[in-house]
Each structure stands twice: as C-alpha cells, then as structure tokens.
C-alpha cells in the first residue's frame, strides 16, 4: 500500500502507485452512487470546510455532496460573500475557518500555489479544488477514473487535449497524471494558448496546430472550455475558433473509432464542442460528473477519516 496522503495539493508530486490507489478506492464509491439510500455515517461528526475564493458551481457542489453522503457536515465560504471583499488576507480567512475546528479544508483560489501555501500553515488536511492555472487534481483523478473505466486501462494511451491549454489547470493536472502512465500527449489550439514551454511538463508531449492531424490515432480527447473570463485579449475571434478548433462529428472521425471525449465542464455548446459530439455515444461528460463524486468521496474518506496523528491509538484488535 502506498504512503498515506496527508493533503492533495496536486498530481505532479504523486506516484503512479498513489494515483492507482485513489482510483481503486473510488470504485466502491462509484457503486455507492447507485444505492437507493445515498447516506453513510462514516464521517459523522466530522466537518469539512469548503473555502471557494473563486466562483465555482460544479466542484463546490460535488465536494459538498460527497461530504454529505459520507455523513460529514460542511462549512461554506463563497467568494461573493466572503470577508475578502472587506480586505481580509487569504491566510487570515483560512485561520479563522480553522479556528472553527474543521477536520479538513477544500480550497479553490485564483492564485497558483494557494493550496500549497495554506497546507504549510494549517494543521488539517488540505484538498486543492483548483489553484490559479496550476493544478486541479480531483478533476484529473475523475478524468482518469472515467478513462480507465471506458478503456479498461490507463497506460500508453494517445491523448489529445484541445483548446486553451496555457490557462487550464485541468490540462496541467491531466498531463501530469496521464504522463505517469506513459501517455503520448498531443496539444492542439491557437498558438498563443499552446506555448512551447508546455512540452517540458512531461516526456512525450508534442504540439500540433492542425486539429485533424492532432486527432489522428487518438484514444482520448480532452476538450477544454474557452475561458473568456481569463482572456483579456483573445488571440483569435470566437468565429475563427469555432471554424478551426471546434470538435465536430467530422473531425471526431479522425480519431480512433472507439475514442472517447472528455470535457471538464461547463460546456459551451456550439463553441468548443458541437452538440452532436457532446451528446454522442463517445462523450463521457456526464459520467465524469458522477465519477467526480466517487473520487471526492474516496479522497475525503482517506484524508478526513481517522484520528489526528497525535491522538491516542487504541488497540485495533478491539474490532474483530
């Protein structure tokens, strides 16, 4: 069994073995989503702080639902209503939350490295729900779970990532994760969003400007959202983007016939993806959402259950 995780800050520092362990632990929770009674008491009495300093809908709801299904309570901090508006610093806000004695904290912040910064300054497990353009580890884990289920394996896949890779923490976490399993990764998008430096993230990454070429032989396609809120000067007009990079059924035929399509959401139909692809049989978009619950439940169970490291350790044999 791999070393027990204390925090989940990113995919990059994890070993393939640790990733496989988390994915294996998510399996029972996938089954659990089909139960008629979706409520466990496993984390009863535990509290998870959800500190979202950046607007989020799906990740926040997914973490909150995962905690609720494990029986934990949540404290919610949302960017719009937070005291950050009143000028409080990030660390003061987090220390205030910590003083209310949660057993773990989930954090999303616009600054790359925010989760790591907090993990060094608090005594509870920290889960990164997205930090700037750095990492979004739970998204990569749920993507990996979805891919492993559909493809039957994770290793040596041809993966093509489409869109604004430069600003995408999902892409970065996906690249780190899939590379650990020997993926060959092709990045495709407008030149400004696919700088050469990305090839240094892992071995076996290359860039390809033409979408048809980028899709050839692909097992897995990861389509990214065009993040208009992060872009001040678009390198390309939306019409041009649609014309050159939209994933259409015709272009999808360049990939392997059994290729699957992932998207971290929210999807914008008719922009980065054609509705016929989003709703087609090769699309895994809604499976990803369901798998997000399984991965986050597995993670919360791993990180938040159990006693604090300094707690007395009663004999395990009491439970035979």
């Amino acid at each position, binding site marked *: 069994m791999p070393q027990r995780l204390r925090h989940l800050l990113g995919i990059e520092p994890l070993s393939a073995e640790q990733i496989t362990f988390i994915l294996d632990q998510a399996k029972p929770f996938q089954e659990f989503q089909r139960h008629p009674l979706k409520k466990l008491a496993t984390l009863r009495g535990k509290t998870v702080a959800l500190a979202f300093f950046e607007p989020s809908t799906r990740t926040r709801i997914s973490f909150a639902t995962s905690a609720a299904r494990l029986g934990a309570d949540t404290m919610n901090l949302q960017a719009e209503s937070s005291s950050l508006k009143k000028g409080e610093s990030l660390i003061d806000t987090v220390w205030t939350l910590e003083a209310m004695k949660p057993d773990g904290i989930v954090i999303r912040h616009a600054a790359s490295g925010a989760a790591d910064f907090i993990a060094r300054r608090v005594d509870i497990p920290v889960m990164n729900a997205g930090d700037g353009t750095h990492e979004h580890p739970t998204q990569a884990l749920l993507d990996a779970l979805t891919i492993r289920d559909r493809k039957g394996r994770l290793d040596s896949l041809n993966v093509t990532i489409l869109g604004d890779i430069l600003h995408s923490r999902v892409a970065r976490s996906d690249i780190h994760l899939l590379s650990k399993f020997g993926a060959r990764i092709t990045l495709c998008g407008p030149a400004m969003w696919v700088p050469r430096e990305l090839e240094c993230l892992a071995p076996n990454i290359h860039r390809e400007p033409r979408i048809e070429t980028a899709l050839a032989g692909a097992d897995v396609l990861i389509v990214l959202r065009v993040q208009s809120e992060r872009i001040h000067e678009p390198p390309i007009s939306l019409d041009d983007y649609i014309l050159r990079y939209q994933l259409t059924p015709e272009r999808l035929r360049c990939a392997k016939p059994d290729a699957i399509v992932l998207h971290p959401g929210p999807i914008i139909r008719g922009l980065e993806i054609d509705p016929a692809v989003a709703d087609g049989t090769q699309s895994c978009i809604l499976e990803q959402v369901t798998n997000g619950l399984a991965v986050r439940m597995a993670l919360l169970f*791993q990180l938040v259950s159990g006693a604090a490291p300094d707690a007395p350790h009663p004999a*395990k044999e009491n439970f*035979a």
Partner: protein
Amino acid sequence: MRVVEKRQLLSAEEIDRTLQRLAHEIVEKSGGTKDVVLIGVRRRGVPLAQRLAKCINGFAKVEIPVGTLDITLYRDDLSTVAAHPVVQSTEIPFVVDNQDLVLVDDVLYTGRTARAAMNGLFDLGRPKRVRMCVLIDRGHRELPIEATFIGRKITTADTEIVEVRLQEIDKEERVMLVDRVD
C-alpha cells in the same frame, strides 16, 4: 507485540465437516431455499459463503445467490484508529428487498462487525429477515447480537485471537488459537 500459537481449534477436515453441517442447518431452519441469499463479510466470510452455497448446491441442487459485503465504511472505530483505512467493493448483484439473508463471517466476537454489516445491508434495501452464520463464536459480546448458525462455540480469554486460515486467502486451511505476549 508478539503472538504465539496455542492450539489448533479446527483442522481442514473439521472445517469442511462443519460447513457441511451449517449448510444443512441453513436449509432446514429456512424451510427450504426459497429467497435464501448468503452475504459473505469481507474478507474471510466471502470464501465461507461461497463454500456454503456450493454445499447447498451439492445436496439441494439449488444455486443460492452469494454477495460480498465490505463493512469498512460502517465501522464505528474509524475516528479512533489512525490506521490507513482501505475500502473494498461491496458486490451484491441482486435486490435484497424481501430476501432471507444469511450473513456469513468467520469469527463472532464483540458483535461490532455484525452491527456494521447490518447497517450496510439496510442501506441496500429492506430484507425480510437477517440471520447470521459464523464458523467460530468466541464470546465477549459488546452488543446484543447472536448468530443463528454456529460452527463451533469456544471459550477464550480476551488476550487471545482466533485465526481462521482459509486456502483461498491464507494458502492453508485450519483454525488456530493464538495468544498475544507483551
């Protein structure tokens, strides 16, 4: 902590005979095999449930459904044990509503595993009845729980451990009484 083997409680042959008897008892006391379903509690309850189903198939010529239950998520000591918890899958590929369930485990001790297993089962539906079948009942109950089908009842000291070793998991076949020596 060191452990020493004190004595053998059951040999391979005795385990086999005990399971044969338990299989007959389950069918007799259930008035047949209608709706009877076996649920093995991970880990060693699983091979025991499969063997019981095979025994029943041997004389009653009926395939009894067998499920597997992992109780990790239902344990009541997770918040006190700092160990690394590992969940495994629960595989109950049938509806438990209105079924006559028999929980199968190797050793009945404090009753806390049985309590956890029942919580797990009731999250899946509403069985008609739940009974329990164990290879060894070693006493020291901490909850009002008793097994309906018992292979062997033994008296033990609290420091002792009953180790059921099964071919499928442990590559040997016997039940040992071991003692903890500090």
